[in-house]
C-alpha cells in the first residue's frame, strides 16, 4: 500500500451566482478507499462530484490527482484533452440513469468495446473476448452481447454501465446514486456486485448517495453534507453508529427499520 493519496482536494467551492453549490470541501482519498458522500437533495453532493470529475469547474479551490507516473497534476489546470483522456482511461463515472452513461443505440458489446478502443485496442477478437468476460462479471448472459441496451431492464442497464466503466481498469470511479431508481431486490444484487468488484480490483471510489444503507455496505469512509458544507466525516461505521452532528443524527434517526 502506498503512503500517498490518489486524490487531494483542498478548499473546493462552487457557487452558482450567490447560491452555494458546495463550500470549502477538503479531503484526501487513498487507493482502494471508497468514500461515500451522503446528504439530501440539494446538499451539494452532486455538485461536489461533478467538480471532482471535472464535469464542472469549481469557483475556487484545488484538486490534484496522482497520475500513473506518480506525479500529482492539478485537475483544473489540465487541458481539456488531458482531462478527457483521464476520463476515458483512468477514471470511470457511473450515472444514476444508465442512459446518461451508455450509448443506447449500439449493442451491449460495443458499449463495452468502445472504451477499450478509446485506449488504443484495435484487435476485434480480443475486444469481443474482453467484452464477453466483462458482461459475465456483471452477470449479463453472453447471448445478450449483440442486443442494444434499450432492450435491457433497468438493473441490467446499470450493470452494463458498470462494465463499460471498469473495462479499462480505472483507478478511480465516481458514482452518482448508482442504485437510485432500481427495485430493492435489484439494488441488493447490484450493491453486492459493486462491493465485490471494488474489493477485487482495489478501486478507489467516490459514491454519492442519499441512502445510508448503500453507504454502509460500500464505503469505509463517509462525508455528510448539508447546505453545501461537510458537517461530519469519518469512518462509515463510526458516523452511522455514533453520529455527532445534529444533521447526521437526524439522518440516522430517520432510517426506517425493517
Amino acid at each position, binding site marked *: 500500500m502506498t503512503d500517498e493519496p490518489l486524490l487531494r482536494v483542498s478548499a473546493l467551492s462552487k457557487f452558482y451566482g450567490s447560491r452555494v453549490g458546495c463550500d470549502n470541501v477538503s479531503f484526501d482519498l487513498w487507493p482502494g478507499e471508497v468514500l461515500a458522500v451522503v446528504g439530501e437533495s440539494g446538499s451539494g453532493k452532486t455538485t461536489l462530484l461533478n467538480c471532482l470529475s471535472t464535469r464542472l469547474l469549481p469557483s475556487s479551490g484545488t484538486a490534484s490527482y496522482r497520475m500513473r507516473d506518480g506525479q500529482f497534476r492539478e485537475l483544473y489546470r489540465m487541458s481539456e484533452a488531458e482531462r478527457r483522456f483521464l476520463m476515458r482511461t483512468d477514471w470511470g463515472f457511473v450515472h444514476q440513469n444508465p442512459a446518461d452513461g451508455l450509448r443506447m443505440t449500439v449493442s451491449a458489446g460495443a458499449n463495452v468495446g468502445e472504451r477499450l478502443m478509446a485506449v488504443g485496442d484495435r484487435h476485434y477478437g480480443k475486444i469481443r473476448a474482453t467484452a464477453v468476460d466483462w458482461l459475465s462479471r456483471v452477470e449479463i448472459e453472453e447471448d445478450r452481447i449483440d442486443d442494444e441496451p434499450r432492450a435491457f431492464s433497468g438493473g441490467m442497464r446499470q450493470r452494463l454501465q458498470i462494465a463499460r466503466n471498469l473495462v479499462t481498469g480505472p483507478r478511480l470511479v465516481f458514482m452518482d446514486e448508482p442504485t437510485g431508481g432500481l427495485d430493492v431486490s435489484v439494488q441488493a444484487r447490484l450493491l*453486492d456486485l459493486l462491493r465485490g468488484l471494488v474489493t477485487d480490483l482495489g478501486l478507489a471510489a467516490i459514491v454519492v448517495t442519499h441512502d445510508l444503507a448503500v453507504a454502509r455496505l460500500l464505503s469505509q469512509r463517509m462525508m455528510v453534507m448539508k447546505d453545501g458544507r461537510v458537517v461530519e466525516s469519518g469512518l462509515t461505521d463510526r458516523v452511522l453508529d*455514533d453520529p455527532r452532528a445534529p444533521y447526521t*443524527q437526524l439522518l440516522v434517526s430517520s432510517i426506517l427499520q425493517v
Partner: protein
Amino acid sequence: MPTPLVVSDVAKSFTMHLRDGIKLPVVAAVSFSIKAGECTVLGGPSGAGKSSILKMLYGNYAVDEGQIIVSHEGGLIDLANASPRTVLAVRRQTIGYVSQFLRTVPRVSALDVVAEPLVERGEEREVARGKARALLAQLNLPEKLWALPPATFSGGEQQRVNIARGFITEHPILLLDEPTASLDARNRDVVIELIAAKKSAGVALLGIFHDHDVRKAVADRVIDVTAFAPGKLAA
C-alpha cells in the same frame, strides 16, 4: 508480559441534538490496560458502559477525552485521535472484534464471511477458506450451511459464524462482546477452548461475558466498569 493496549482517562458521552441537546454521560476517567496472553473481562450491570468501551477501542464510537494507546506494527498509536485510515489499518492488523450481532451482506456465503478478514490481510483465498472450514467445523456449524449467506441462519448459527470470523486471524488484540450469548453448552465450551488457545498464543483478550460459567473459565482479571460511572468524577 507485554501490554499492547493502554486506556487512560477516557470519557464518553452522547449529545442528543434531537432532544434539545441533552447530554448523556456514559463513562468517565476510564483507565486500564490489558496484557498479552491474558483475558481481561469488563464486569458490571447492563448500561454501565461495557459495550461502549469496547466500541471506543475499536474506533466504532468516538472518544470525547483521553487516550487509547495501542501498539501497532512496531509503533504506538493513539486510537482516540487516529485518522479513519489509521483506524482501518489497526483493525486489519492489530485489533480484532467479535460483535454481538453479525451484520450480513447479501449473497456472500458463510464460508467467505469467515474467510474475509484473512483475505484482507493478504492470505490466499483458498488457504483462508480452508481455515474457515476448520473453524466452522470446530464450532459445529452444519456443513450444508457453509455455502449459504448467513442472513437466514438462527441466532446461534449467526453467532458462530461471527465467532469464527473473529478468531480466524492472528490479531494480537481481540475484543469480544458477549460471544456466547446465544450458544448452547457444547458450543460455549468450544468458545472457551478457542479463547484458551488465543491466550497461549499470546493474544491480549478483552471481553464482556454475562454467562457466569464462561466468565469463570476464561477470566484472568475482572475490571468493574461501575468504577468509571460519570457521577464518580464529581465525588
